[in-house]
């Protein structure tokens, strides 16, 4: 299985190459990609240089242009597609049907991947993307169990890529407006979720409250580590009780499921985290490289070394083990 690694900066990209990535995904430093954070991502020149470097080292570069183009400004996304093709990207990761149509007709030889933001969660939806745009790979949403992934792989004609580590969306990706409801900015439109510009930490009655867009997302004892207020990982209250209603502040770690994913016929494993630093990229990529080497040689996989890199220092296998059902 290919190991697909994140890079938010040229430095992280070099780190990922050294740590054993087979392919690296990255985006331009604007609203065309779904990790549009300040100080992150690649200029046109940086991308060209990164691709040249990666190709010298035998590593592929996948360019994510996976927000939904803003009406009236579609040409900005068209330019991103054209520039990524000209820079010799190995694949483009796209979500919008209008943009997929543009890329497929303008650059018919370019390899296209369907972004997780396109929410292709079953063989029929995947078939629509492969037949309409000639997409060669689909990144599966994090809502499926390993058995369901295996069934999809048997039925579709394209490759599949699944997330194995990092931030975990509990909502279907590409179909969530929670962030823009609280802040006016969303993953689909601006490429951000729960943006830092709308985050505040306040001391109140001996507690630290984390707020997003004015809404209290969590509350901590003084001295307790106050986590980042990602909206769906907050603590809320209902008439049936108070707690982490959607999901605890945990990260995905599917290291223990690699055998099952390989047997399911998955082509590529993806690590989330273009917004994370070099230490994260180095640690997580190297760990999964070793795990994949162990898998290939039939040795046991050493799981559970990655806790320091996780949100809330806790992990879950998410939907993969069917506990959501």
């Amino acid at each position, binding site marked *: 299985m290919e190991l697909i690694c994140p890079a938010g900066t040229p430095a992280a990209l070099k780190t990922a190459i050294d740590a054993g990535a087979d392919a690296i995904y990255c985006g331009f430093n604007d609203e065309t990609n779904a990790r549009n954070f300040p100080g992150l991502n690649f200029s046109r020149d940086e991308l060209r240089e990164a691709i040249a470097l990666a190709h010298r080292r035998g590593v592929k570069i996948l360019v994510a242009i996976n927000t939904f183009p803003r009406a009236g400004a579609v040409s900005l996304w068209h330019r991103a597609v054209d520039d990524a093709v000209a820079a010799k990207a190995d694949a483009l990761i796209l979500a919008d049907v209008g943009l997929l149509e543009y890329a497929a007709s303008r650059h018919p030889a370019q390899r296209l991947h369907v972004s997780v933001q396109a929410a292709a969660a079953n063989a029929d939806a995947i078939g629509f993307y492969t037949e309409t745009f000639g997409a060669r790979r689909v990144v599966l949403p994090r809502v499926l169990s390993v058995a369901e992934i295996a069934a999809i792989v048997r039925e579709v004609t394209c490759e599949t890529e699944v997330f194995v580590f990092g931030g975990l969306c509990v909502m279907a990706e590409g179909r969530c407006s929670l962030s823009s409801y609280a802040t006016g900015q969303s993953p689909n439109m601006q490429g951000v979720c729960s943006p830092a510009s709308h985050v505040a930490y306040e001391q109140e009655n001996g507690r630290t409250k984390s707020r997003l867009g004015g809404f209290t997302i969590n509350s901590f004892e003084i001295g307790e580590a106050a986590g980042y207020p990602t909206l769906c990982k907050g603590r809320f209250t209902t008439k049936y009780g108070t707690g982490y*209603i959607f999901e605890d502040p945990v990260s995905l770690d599917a290291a223990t499921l690699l055998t099952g994913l390989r047997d399911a016929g998955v082509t590529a494993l993806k690590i989330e985290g273009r917004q994370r630093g070099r230490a994260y990229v180095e640690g997580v990529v190297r760990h999964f490289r070793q795990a994949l080497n162990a898998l290939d040689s039939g040795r046991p996989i050493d799981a559970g070394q990655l806790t320091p890199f996780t949100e809330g220092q806790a992990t879950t296998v998410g939907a993969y083990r069917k506990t959501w059902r």
Partner: protein
Amino acid sequence: MQLSLGPVLYNWAPERWRDFYFRIADEAPVDTVAIGEIVCSKRSPFIAPHLPAVVERLRAAGKQVLPGSLILTSLPRERRQMADLVNTEELLVEVNDLTCLKPLIGRPHAIGPFINIYNEASAAFHAQRGATRICLPPELPMSSVAAIAAAVPNVLIDIFAFGRVPLAISARCYHARLHKLTKDNCQFVCERDPDGLMLRTLDGADFLTVNGVQTLSSTCTNLLGDANALSEAGVGSFRLSPQDCDMVAVISVFRAALDGREDAESGTRRLAQLYPNAPFSNGFLHGVAGFVSVAPDARSSRQHGFREPIEPHML
């Protein structure tokens, strides 16, 4: 301006669901009714016995009926349900997930608010494949609505104009999780909350509502005050989403206001009486946080405890 009624998103008792639609058929001045269980496939068997009679009554009353697809389709059983749905040849299917688009290509169909149409290119893509009406995602600002409507003049543009806003869909059921049940053995606990389960911040501020696998806003969209601007932008239909209130009266208020028989301010006052559960919002349309209520004119705004700073140019 036409009116469309969205599907009931909540788990209402089957007889109540049937009687709701019978009354819509008999009394509501609405042109189009989207129908069917689109949130959770486990609920579908309950309304299935009543569906034919409801569709027949609505059509006999002259309403256009749009059977809607599931928002999130993953199980084999759900895919079979969707395959059956697209065989409904005499009705215009409303697509809420691309799962069921392929067999509809080349045949007239509707695109629901759960399909990502964020720009004129994706709207044109769907129009070329047979979409004759598109209900836009509620997240879109006015500038996008106008650009999309201008690009597909032959498509009826429907806009989410009343009701709690659907914000997210998940494979996980939060009603079941709250009741410490599994999704497969959920005991249909969502039926206890026919208007959704209020989710508050730890400070006690209303924030979201939970409806099984779906998460909606706590505020209620109300675009009555934006009707003139939307009409000028090329919007042809207002979509009203059923809440646990007198929806026939809600529809009548919209009809009266859109026909100029009542002004938006007085209509909004009446809507607030009919549905006092939730403050109104229209922030998405004005390019700010969705929960915000922006007064497009002198109309007073209603808003919960928090105030989002709004740039003057957005007002």
